[in-house]
């Protein structure tokens, strides 16, 4: 099978492409020409450099593909500086793909748990039936993209993915985008990629899934930051948001059949400890 991975040169895209290649699939990666292609090109994928907002470019990229994994999107904070551009990339970009594939071609859409809006006052965990509440450009665009895909009628899996965590040294932003006492649940990048790859096989069900790390990843904002940087061996002085933001604990029972929750938070800590030693931080 030839699978098109849009946004495939990013961190999540790389992990998806790697897992697909390891599964024996032919992978065509579509991403902007100016991004760093060096890692993904080493996987032996077909590199297709173009812009998701350009229908011609997308049509060419979709030629002879048997399935699409659609990751390309404008993410926060960049999405919040232009509503127009965010809708163009995240919604029109999705339409461009659907215009370019047959109605029976499966498509996995990566959406986001941020489409539930700010749920601090709700009773956790948040499941897939919780009302979607757009609160910024990004969540608005993802809700619209979900509708575009559902309306198109293709076989699909829509994945509302929690914020991604990586086993790497990640710098703290000036302000952490959640409160210190807020419920947060992230997911390890390779597990999110695993969910995407497996969900390709169940597109006929046309289901929507929450994709998050699971119970071991459910903690408060301050616990996440403390444990992450302690594992790396770094003392940090984080400044948290004073407002609640769109991260919470999620009900991932429906997606359990995908079998993607393979990395506990404790296992991430072990990976970070090794990295911290290799980097001379511990």
């Amino acid at each position: 099978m030839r699978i098109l991975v849009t946004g495939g040169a990013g961190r999540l895209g790389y992990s998806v492409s790697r897992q697909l290649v390891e599964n024996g699939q032919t992978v065509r990666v579509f991403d902007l020409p100016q991004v760093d292609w060096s890692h993904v090109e080493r996987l032996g994928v077909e590199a297709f450099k173009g812009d998701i907002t350009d229908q011609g470019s997308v049509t060419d990229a979709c030629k002879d593909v048997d399935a699409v994994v659609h990751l390309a999107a404008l993410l926060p904070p960049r999405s919040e500086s232009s509503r127009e551009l965010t809708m163009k990339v995240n919604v029109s970009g999705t339409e461009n793909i659907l215009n370019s594939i047959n109605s029976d071609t499966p498509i996995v859409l990566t959406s986001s748990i941020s489409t539930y809006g700010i749920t601090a006052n709700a009773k956790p965990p948040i499941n897939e039936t919780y009302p979607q509440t757009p609160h910024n450009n990004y969540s608005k665009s993802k809700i619209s993209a979900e509708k575009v895909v559902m309306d198109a009628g293709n076989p699909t899996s829509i994945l509302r993915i929690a914020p991604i965590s990586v086993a790497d040294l990640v710098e703290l932003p000036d302000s952490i985008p959640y409160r210190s006492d807020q419920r947060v649940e992230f997911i390890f990048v390779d597990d999110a990629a695993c969910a995407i790859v497996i969900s390709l096989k169940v597109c006929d069900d046309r289901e929507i899934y929450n994709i998050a790390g699971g119970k071991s990843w459910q903690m408060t904002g301050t616990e996440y930051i403390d444990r992450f940087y302690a594992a790396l061996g770094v003392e940090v002085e984080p400044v948290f948001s004073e407002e609640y933001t769109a991260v919470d604990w999620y009900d991932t029972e429906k997606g359990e059949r995908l079998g993607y929750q393979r990395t506990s938070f404790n296992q991430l800590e072990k990976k970070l400890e090794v990295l911290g030693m290799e980097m001379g931080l511990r």
Partner: protein
Amino acid sequence: MEKALENLDRVIEKVSDEAAKKRLGEARKVISQNRKKIWLRTKTGKPMALETQAVTENILEASDIEYALSELEAHVDKITEESRRRSMVVT
């Protein structure tokens, strides 16, 4: 990095050319914004911090400020790129 900032302050004070002063100010701003980055404490980051100090010392002593300034700007670009690469991933 603090020493590099001190060096740049001295150069900025000394230089009379306004265009060069502006470029030095921009480089100083990047160094100041990045001086507490965690990656500068790693095995690969520490040499970068030392190199930052060295390129600012070169400017202090340079007879050809243009060449030394270009060297500083190229170095600052590397700092910016590494910090961008390590910025927090949020979806």
